[in-house]
């Protein structure tokens, strides 16, 4: 992986964020985390993020609305959603609105989330290579 992707973790539970940061601590990504989805969206507008991992049930804005907003702001941003409230609707909506993956809390194994993120990063690598060759420019490496 040539890119050091920027990942934003969003969950209203600070302990879960700390745990996720720890789970990603051996990965090559730049990790940021935030408990407030409204601030999360502002951050996404201001800074570039490649991957967002967000909870679905949160105060102020639920994760699905955040997902929709992110995807309409920049469809390239890859969003993984997490939920403790497993319903068919939640799951279908998540994919409908463009999530790449969904994880149910508590996780079977948090490493699966890391692995899934790695797979998304690998795909982003390939997408970037293709895009770069099409645009004919070298770089866009962060």
């Amino acid at each position, binding site marked *: 992986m040539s890119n050091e992707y920027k990942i934003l973790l969003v969950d209203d539970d600070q302990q879960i964020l700390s745990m996720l940061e720890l789970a990603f601590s051996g990965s090559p990504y730049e990790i940021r985390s935030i408990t407030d989805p409204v601030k999360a969206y502002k951050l996404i507008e201001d800074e570039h993020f490649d991957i967002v991992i967000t909870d679905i049930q949160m105060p102020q804005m*639920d994760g699905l609305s955040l997902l929709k907003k992110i995807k309409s702001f920049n469809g390239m941003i890859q969003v993984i959603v997490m939920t403790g409230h497993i319903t068919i609707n939640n799951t279908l909506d998540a994919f409908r609105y463009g999530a790449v993956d969904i994880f149910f809390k508590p996780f079977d194994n948090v*490493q699966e989330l890391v692995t899934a993120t790695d797979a998304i990063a690998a795909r982003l690598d390939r997408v970037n290579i293709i895009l770069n060759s099409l645009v004919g420019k070298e770089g866009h490496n962060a």
Partner: protein
Amino acid sequence: MPTDNVGAGFSALSSAKVGNQVILVVDDDFVNRMLLRKILENSGYAVLEAFNGKEALARVKADKPDLVLLDIMMPEMDGYEVCEYLKADSDTESIPVIFITALSDSADLVKGFNVGAEDYVSKPINVEEVRARVKTHLKLKTATEAIKRYNEELEQVVAESSKELIRAERQAAVGQLIQGIVHNLKGPLTTMKGGLDIGRKILSALTHAAEEETAPSQGQLGKWGRDASKALELTATAAERLQEMINSLMEKGTADHIHTLVRCDLNEIILNELEFLSADLYFKHNIKKDVDLCPEKPVILANPSEIAQVLSNLLGNAKDALTGSPSPTISINTRISGSDILLRVTDNGPGIAPQNLEKIFEPFYTTKARPEKGAKNSAGLTGTGLGLYMCQRSVKAMGGEIRAESPPTGGAAFQVRIPLAKQET
């Protein structure tokens, strides 16, 4: 046996036997007392006598007669004064007093009624008049007592069935809450499991390194150590949080069976209740909570689960009132006022019409659909209309009061005043 009953259904009335009834005759004149005794005993009443005001008061206190026949003109303490004493004492105020008076001046009669006498008979004594008046007032008294008893019984019945309903309603609510509770438990559980996963991964990396017989670098070992201890710490904290949540749920579950009054901190109960209610995801995420609690510890003598129930009713009503509100906010504040604690729960919902401010405390008054019908009102709300009625009962039982306001600025405000507990000595 009197045959004329006041209304059917009051069995106490039809079975009233005059023989049971005791009449106190108060007169300084021995001959009058003898005459009255004869008249009354012939009608089947038991008669007690007193020859002055002081003696009269003592006898009333001691023997609780059903009626007092009271002479006005007596030395030392006159009849008016005796009557005033009797009517001022809650133990004796319901005993009818009939004046015996030679005074025919209407001013004197007015004075008699002003001090609370029920009626008068004139001197010289007329047998029929005495019998008629006594009979009327005893019947009235019996009827009043029966109605009072009937009301008390009714209130008891209402209270009992309210409790039943509330229990049933709470069980239904628990069903709805379970989803929320489970969701809340998933948070710490996710952290715990995640912490374990991370720990296991480090352990397997270590085992792997040992099998390969290639010593990991100092830097790698250091990171594994730090990560492992962080993972353990996160797991431990999450486990504690889980334990706390379970404990507060257990308290909630068992507190209902305890009916003793204990010293408790109202602020603490408020915070616990808010924590408990955040199991309701709508309450947790969509409603802004302005909590402003007094810095002093407001200790009250109460049953904590009953207080929690009062709070949960008030907050539940506020939440209901805020359905569809653009920026739903509930304010909760406590403030010490003299020897009381004032709790205010305010919302910025539609408020309550002035003519309904009293009505909402009546049992079964609700603008929501009855839950057993499975129907919902236009806003999708259900209620039994017992919430505020029970709140008022509980608060009164604690020696406090509850009142509703709908300030012109909008929204509804509920104010609860509860006496603070005396300092422990």
